[in-house]
Each structure stands twice: as structure tokens, then as C-alpha cells.
């Protein structure tokens, strides 16, 4: 239960991020050794099938798969984002997105596969449109935050973009008239918001912070039955739950399972924790139970966690200790 089903080693330095492809068959990792690794199962073992090491000149901070599974994007401290064509055995870098002033922290794809978002220490959030022939054009460059932007995530179905920042806020963006713009700011965290995740429907958002809490936010649309005011006909997001007292250090990542509804967090106290909403919870004041804590999941800070999109209970984690671990939590669901 508290032991990993597999430990994947190979990265020569801290691993920053892990991401599953949409089919759940390939795990991608990236880290401070400037490389991206693709892992898949051969028989009972997980092996590293590909190492992409020449394309970035600094730490690769984040990787993201397009919804079709044919393209991978990697965001790096070298201020670029590389786009990889993964349809063939031989993975090739087909485009490089330049323009950010400094370290790119995160990259995310929209559900349609037609948009990409990036964010950086330069405090801005960019939206890119995928044109033909591997051409990516800037659709918007927003100076959204007042500090380093740590993470961007698209809504599971709509063209709504969420961003989390060192300025303690989460901002929601959408296209209005001619350009993208911030339509909602979620305030409440007392420190850097490191990561965010939408639930399967997109009506809720979980955020994790340096302030050691997890917050769950809920969308209230115009005309909602709870009577929450929606000025100017824009949806309003309210914090409906705060989980505090569980984490001993900063929480670096969060993953909200689309299959089970469980929330996994990765923490600077080296632990992984799993939370789930109590059945029959008040929808406007939900209660989340801590189902499981894995103490010393890794030897050092756990930087990233991600649920497999097709296999129930399968979780991947990445750490400063240079390793990636796979966990099977299917028994708790």
C-alpha cells in the first residue's frame, strides 16, 4: 500500500514534472538535466523508451500532451517551448515557441487541441493558436499577474484558462471580443499558488499553495439557484472548502482524477496525500476526507503528481530525489 509499484530512475537531476498521454500508456517526465523521458510498460516492467536531450539548454520544467496524443509540448527555463511530433517511433521537434522574456514554467493544451497556453517568470500568460503546418501563432500575451506565474491549466471542455502565481492568486481567462482577458481572480491563499487542477466537469478547481493548504473553488453561473450574485453576467468562483493542517510544508502539485474524483497532492514534506469528497456532501460546502498519506513517498520534495487518465488508482509522482514512482491506489476506491 505504501510502497511504489515501480521506481523509475534515469534522470540525472531533480525531476520537475510528470504527465500521462491521453491513452494512459506513456508517462513523460522532465527535469533539471535538460531532458525529457518517455516511459512505457514492457511486460511487467516500466522502461524508458525515449530520451529527448538536445533540444533545451536549461531545465525542462513542464511537459503536456495534446488531447489527440500526437503532440507533446515541453516548457523550459531557457525561455522556449518545444513542440514534438510523437506520431512516429522517431520523435521530432517540429516547432519552437519563442517570445517569453525568461523561464517558462508551464504549458497546457486546450480540450480542442487548437490552443496552447504558456506562462513564465516574466509574469505573463500567453495563448497560442495552432495553425497549419506546425505553425503556432500568438493569440494573446497577457500581463496577467504581478509576479512569476507557476502554472497554467485549461478547463476540461471550454476555452477557459486558469493560471496560478507567486502573487498568491489564481486567475481565470477567456476570449472576449478581440482578445483574451482575465475575467475572474481567486484570492484567499496566503502565499504562492504552485498548482491548480479542474475536476472532470470543470465546475470546480483545486489550488495548492506554499501556505500548506488546498482550496476547492466552485463556479456559480449567472442565474444560479444559490442566489450568488454574478455581476456583468460573468461566472463567479467561490472558495467552498479549505483543507489545512494536513501538509507540513509547501504543496507543489495537485491532480484531480477524472475517473474517481480523488485529489492527490505532492508536498515539500516528501509525502503524497489522497483526498476525496464525502458522499452526500453539501455541494456548496463540500467536505473532503484525507483517505491516505504516503509518508516519505520520496527521499526529497515531491514536485509533481498525476493520475493516469484510463487506469483507476494509478498515480505517478516525481521528486527532487531524481526518481519517478508509480503507485497503485485502486484498492481505496
Amino acid at each position, binding site marked *: 500500500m505504501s510502497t511504489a509499484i515501480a521506481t523509475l530512475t534515469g534522470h540525472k537531476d531533480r525531476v520537475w514534472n510528470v504527465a500521462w498521454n491521453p491513452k494512459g500508456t506513456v508517462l513523460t517526465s522532465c527535469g533539471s538535466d535538460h531532458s525529457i523521458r518517455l516511459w512505457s510498460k514492457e511486460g511487467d516492467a516500466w522502461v524508458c523508451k525515449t530520451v529527448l536531450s538536445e533540444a533545451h539548454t536549461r531545465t525542462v520544467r513542464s511537459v503536456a500532451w495534446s488531447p489527440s496524443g500526437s503532440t507533446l509540448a515541453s516548457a523550459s527555463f531557457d525561455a522556449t517551448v518545444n513542440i514534438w511530433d510523437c506520431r512516429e517511433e522517431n520523435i521530432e521537434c517540429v516547432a519552437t515557441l*519563442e*517570445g517569453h*522574456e525568461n523561464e517558462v514554467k508551464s504549458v497546457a493544451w486546450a480540450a480542442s487541441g487548437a490552443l496552447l497556453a504558456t506562462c513564465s*517568470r*516574466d509574469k*505573463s500568460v*500567453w495563448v497560442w493558436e495552432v495553425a497549419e503546418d506546425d505553425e503556432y*501563432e*500568438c*493569440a*494573446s*500575451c497577457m*500581463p496577467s499577474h504581478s509576479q*512569476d506565474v507557476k502554472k497554467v491549466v485549461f478547463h476540461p471542455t471550454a476555452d477557459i484558462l486558469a493560471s496560478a502565481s*507567486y502573487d498568491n492568486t489564481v486567475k481565470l481567462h477567456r476570449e472576449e*471580443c*478581440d*482578445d483574451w482577458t482575465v475575467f475572474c481572480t481567486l484570492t484567499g491563499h496566503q502565499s504562492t499558488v504552485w498548482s491548480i487542477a479542474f475536476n472532470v466537469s470543470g465546475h470546480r478547481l483545486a489550488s495548492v499553495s506554499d501556505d500548506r493548504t488546498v482550496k476547492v473553488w466552485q463556479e456559480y453561473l449567472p442565474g444560479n439557484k444559490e442566489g450568488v450574485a454574478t455581476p456583468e453576467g460573468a461566472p463567479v468562483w467561490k472558495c467552498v472548502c479549505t483543507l489545512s493542517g494536513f501538509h507540513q510544508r509547501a504543496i507543489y502539485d495537485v491532480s484531480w482524477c477524472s475517473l474517481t474524483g480523488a485529489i492527490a497532492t505532492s508536498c515539500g514534506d516528501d509525502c503524497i496525500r489522497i483526498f476525496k469528497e464525502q458522499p452526500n456532501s453539501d455541494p456548496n460546502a463540500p467536505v473532503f476526507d484525507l483517505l491516505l498519506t504516503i509518508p516519505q513517498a520520496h527521499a526529497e520534495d515531491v514536485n509533481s503528481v498525476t493520475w493516469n487518465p484510463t487506469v483507476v488508482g494509478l498515480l505517478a509522482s516525481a521528486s527532487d530525489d531524481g526518481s519517478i514512482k508509480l503507485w497503485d491506489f485502486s484498492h481505496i476506491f
Partner: protein
Amino acid sequence: MSGFSGVLKLTDLDDFIAPSQECIKPVKVEQKSGRGVIRIENDGADAAMAVQPKYEKAKITLNDCLACSGCITSAEVVLVNQQSHDEFYRVLAENNSREISEKLTIIVSMSPQAVLSIAAKYSLGADECAQKLASYFKRLGAHYIFDTNFARNLSLLEAEREFLKRYKEKDSDPKTLPMLASACPGWVCYAEKTHGSFILPYISTVRSPQQVMGSLVKDLWATQKGLTPDKIYHVTVMPCFDKKLEAAREDFYNETFSAREVDCVITSVEVEQMLVRDEVELVTLSPCCLDGDLSSGSQLTSHPGSSSGGYAHSIFIKAAKELFNQEIDDLQWKILRNNDFREVILEVNGETVLRFALAYGFRNIQNLVQKLKRGKSPYHYIEVMACPSGCLNGGAQVRPESGISSKELVAQLEEAYQSLPASRPHDDQRVLSCYSEWLGGHDSEKTRQVLHAKYKAVEKNVNALGIKW
């Protein structure tokens, strides 16, 4: 960092005025000659005991500060403090207390976009506003008030000539086109810093109207009045803080007289603040005509095309006429990916011979540069501006009143601008005589020196201690 364009806000201003850890500018200590006391040592040697000097507060001039790379003060602080309305007030006060023979001549040049922004705030007509502002500035101690549209004529004509020359060379030199507009300092400074030597050869060398005005005031006009550049204090009123950065460029500094061509840039929002501070109701002031020497005329004028100078418009029409013998009055702009990215083409015998674009705002600049880098730009000329909707939406324009959106205000200002009488630089006698009498012809060394500028790639300042996390 308010007041600056979105483009400069996204880059690091500190790289332009490279601050590092401590000011290393040696401060000149005045050697006061006085009574030295000689102390006779025991061995017979003598040592002069200097009177302990009383140190004055260390002062560094803006020039020294900007030219040096040793200061901890951030670029923004330097620019905003040294080139602001506070500085203007200080200079005015200092001038008021000077002897007549020592007084500086104070000139104020106003851009049409700034005037319109202020006019909208106080519900005044364009000319009314310009004249009331003239009255206000004269009250404060300024001597002559001009508008910058006359200067813009020269800027446009030079841009036309440069384009024609480059178009003719395009087959022998693939890097001569597309020609990119140079009037916007937000764009130019960003280009110097981010894309350096790759992009600079494409940018037009023509000076912006502000800097042409600088030349006109400190060279042509000064000579006519028997003044040297350091005896004139030239203030411009502009729609953004980026213009402060432009005025501070090395290129626009006269070494001989240690004088800037534009000494101080104040912006629309700063004029608003000044009026509040001085408790002046602009509407109640009696209008004062602008001075004729360097103004566009008795009324404010516009140039056809965009409200950011109309560069693409005038160059397109001139090129169509000169190169293809086509008389065009009106350009049919097609909106592409967004409102701030448009193109217009000229087809002759089924072939596209001219293709121009307008690219305003950071996202469009990004796309334009990336396309250029990949060799995929189909354009011959691109009017590039840092601010979406152009100068009327500059970073330091007066904010809209509550109840009206930014978009609505900009639309209002556009309408106001388009209703100003259009200037016709080709027929303007004064413009033509500038070339014949002052500049010595279109291709003279003087023209190149006084109406054109140079660009330099700016190194990124990688000072770990200077990074803002």
C-alpha cells in the same frame, strides 16, 4: 510600471539603463582655494593641512546616469523622476529666478494624440484644448508652444523616400524588405533588446516626429533665433512613457553643447495631474494661439490613414504612384487575425506588387518577428506600434471616466482625430523650404544626421543580484 506600453512592460526596462550594484560615478568635489595651514613636522618636512571640505550633496546629471552602467537605481525610477512633470516644474522655477541673460528659452511641443486625450477629458474641441494648454504652459513660464504635426510631415516624407529606395533594391538585397516603422520607441527599444542585430536592419532609420521636432527646435529654430541648444529647454507632451526612453537615447544627445534635443517628456496623465496640482480649470483659460514657427498651422492637423502617424498609408500611396503609376485615394484594409493586424495589397495585372500591414500590440509584434525569422513574411512594409489601437491608446493617455470603456474612449478619440483637417506634406511650402534651405537637399549629409537615427542591439543584463524573483 504604469504609463509605459504593454510591450515595454513585458520586457525588462533595466536592461536599457543598465543598473548594477553601486553608483561608481566619481562625484566632482569642488576644490576650494583657501587658506592652507602648513604644519611643520618634527623632521623638518612640511605638510599642508587642508581645510576640511564641507561636502555638498552628491548630484548626478541624467546624462551621466543614463550613460553609465554603475547605478543601483532602476531604469524606471531614473526615467520617471528625472523626466517628469516634477522636473519640468523644477526647471521652470529655476528659470524664473535666473537673470534675464541667463534664462533658458522654454519650448513645449504637443503631440495631437496627447491633446485629443486631454480634450476628451475636459470636453473641449481639439483646437480649443490645444490653445488653452498653450495658455496654461505660458502661464507657467514656457515661451513658445508648438504642435508636432509639422515635424511629422518631414518624418513621413523621409519614410516614403527610404521605402522607394529599398523597394528598388529588394531583388539584389533580400534583407532590405520588409521595412518596419520606426516612430514607436516601445517597438524600437523592444526590438533592440530582444531581437538585436537580426531585426534592426529592417527597421526604418527615419526619426519619429518627436525627435524630428527635437532637431527642428534645437538646430533650425535655435539657429534662426541665435540660440545654442543648451540655452533651450525643450519639453514634449506625449501619450506614453516610452517617449521618455526615446528622448533619453544617446543618438539624440548633442555632445558639443551637452544638450538633449528633447529635454523632458511629459505625458497626458501628467498634464492632468499638473492641472489638478495648480488648481487650474482648463476650460476657463482664455485660448492662446500656438506659435506659428514650427506648428502645423492655425489649426491642429492630422495625417490620413492611421491615427498613429499614417505611415503605411502615405508610403503605400506614394509607392503606388511612383513605382506603378497608380493614383490611389483610399486604402481598403483587410482585418486579419485581430483588429490590430490588417493588410492592404496593390495588384497590377493580376500580380500583387505591394503588400503592407499594420501590426499593433505585443502579440502581433511577436507573430511578425517570428514569421520574419522563418523567412515567411510576405510584406513590403509594416507599420508597427506597441500599443493595441495605436497612440490614441498610449500607456499614459488619460483614463476613461467611469461609465465608459477604454474601447469606447479610443473610438471617440479616433473620430476626433479623423475629423481634424488633413495635412498635405508634399504641397507644404514650409516643408519644401526645410529641405532647400535648412537641410541642403533630400540626400544631404545633414538630412541623414538630423532626420535619421541609428540602432544598437542592447545586451541582456545578466546580473544575478539584479534579478527580481
